[in-house]
């Protein structure tokens, strides 16, 4: 079990995320057709496939290069709202991680926090708006507090994964206040948010890679 995550680890994380959104393409799109415009699964699968192509071709050696490529590829290939949101997340993540070849727990947490702040700046979402924020914010809070209490990186990331999943599940009864789902008003309640669902997959992928 590692105390750091390397460029290879980051690449494995992205690949594990790609696997998840690809395998769950139909599921994510189904969630999105209930309260959105029925394209989240296909957009994320297309975007992450493009990311892995670009990353494979460029073979970046530092975190900032890697995540700049990831962010720009998502921004230019996904469209809709998910492209700018996930794109901004990874761009800010990379800028904070910096020109390094590996991150320890606190560095990873700081990069994730910066990514979250980017998502908030872009989407103006707050807690309980029924967005990806509702999975991402609790996950990063859980990571921070686990690291502060001396947990191993693997345990801290596992705690983040569990918090993201709980945050995702908690979006079900919420009435959406951001994005296209918000126009449905009360009709948006009773459905999981597709963005929170894909974000939970992002943390699930991270936990799998760190535990490996």
């Amino acid at each position, binding site marked *: 079990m590692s105390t750091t995550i390397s460029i290879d680890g980051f690449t494995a994380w992205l690949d594990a995320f790609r696997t998840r959104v690809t395998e769950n393409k139909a599921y994510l799109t189904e969630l999105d057709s209930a309260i959105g*415009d*029925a*394209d989240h699964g*296909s*957009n994320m699968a297309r975007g992450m496939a493009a990311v892995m192509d670009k990353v494979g071709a460029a073979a970046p050696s530092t975190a900032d290069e890697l995540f700049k490529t990831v962010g720009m590829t998502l*921004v*230019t*290939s*996904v*469209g*809709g*709202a998910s*492209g*700018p*949101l996930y*794109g*901004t997340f990874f761009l800010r993540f990379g800028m904070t991680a910096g020109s390094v070849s590996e991150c320890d727990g606190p560095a990873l947490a700081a990069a994730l926090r910066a990514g979250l702040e980017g998502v908030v700046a*872009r*989407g103006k979402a707050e807690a309980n708006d029924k967005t990806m924020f509702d999975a991402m914010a609790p996950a990063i809070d859980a990571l921070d507090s686990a690291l502060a209490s001396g947990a191993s990186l693997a345990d801290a990331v596992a705690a983040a994964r569990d918090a993201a999943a709980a945050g995702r599940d908690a979006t079900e009864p919420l*009435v959406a*206040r*951001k*994005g*296209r789902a*918000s*126009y*449905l*008003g009360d*009709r948006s309640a009773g459905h999981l948010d597709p963005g929170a669902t894909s974000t939970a997959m992002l943390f699930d992928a991270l936990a799998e890679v760190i535990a490996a």
Partner: protein
Amino acid sequence: MKKLINSPESVLADALRGIEAAHPDQRVDHENRVIYRATPKEHGTVALVSGGGSGHEPLHGGFVGFGMLDAACAGEVFTSPTPDQMQAATKEVDRGAGVLHIVKNYTGDVMNFEMAAELAAMEASVDVKTVVVNDDVAVQDSLYTAGRRGVGLTVLLEKIVGAAAEQGRSLDEVVALAEKVNGDGRSMGMALTSCTVPAAGKPTFDLPDDQMEIGIGIHGEPGRQRVPLADASHVAEQLVEPILADLDFGGAPTIVMLNGMGGTPLIELYLMYGEVARILEKHGITIARNLVGNYITSLDMAGCSVTVLRADDEIVSLWDAPVETPGLRWGR
């Protein structure tokens, strides 16, 4: 699904080739999916860039030309274009006087244009300003939603603001005018049928024969409420009354657009315009200018929308100014 397409995946690329073949006054950048004027405007004048998901034709590409837009970025059907497209368009059309982005208020469009403006300012030091159009009175609770959607008023705004830019007004003046138009216009739409996105292959929602959806957007999303189908005079009331309840038009003259959603014949649109004009007259509102036809559509959706814009002498004169685009053409 019965559609005149080669494949769902190639609809946009194939349509852009057709646009290029049909309109020698336009130039198409197929890689970036941007429609430009074939002849750029003069140096020192403000340029206008708009764009959005496809499926709303003639919006926006059909409004690229003299007196309106300088470039339109085309996204996939009902999906926002991406910042790289917008950035390419912004750099290409800048004539040193700045660029106005005209954005319909949808979360994806707003975010992508925001990123494009940041990128363009960073890389090419183009002065970019943005107006977000949000004229849809169907969205009532704008505090707890992503806000009112940008619909029919976008057409009138692109015409009026385009005329002002053509006259050589500064970017700040153009922005102020765009904000004024956005503040002074309201729209409301309705659907008789859903629409079929090519990639989805089936209608976005089911609408029984005896029902209509009031307060729709332009993406086949559900509206404010589903109600029994009524005759045209009552449908017109259900569209006009919320507009008049939302904005006091006083005694000001107006520009009125009766817009088809794509699947409604012109005879019904004229019929509806007659009903709308009658209701406005009853409220003492004069119509200075009008537009009847399919200008901002939702693929094959049957239905219509009404847009009413308060129009002083300046707005009317900008409306009357020469325009030469595939979608609107007069005075030149």
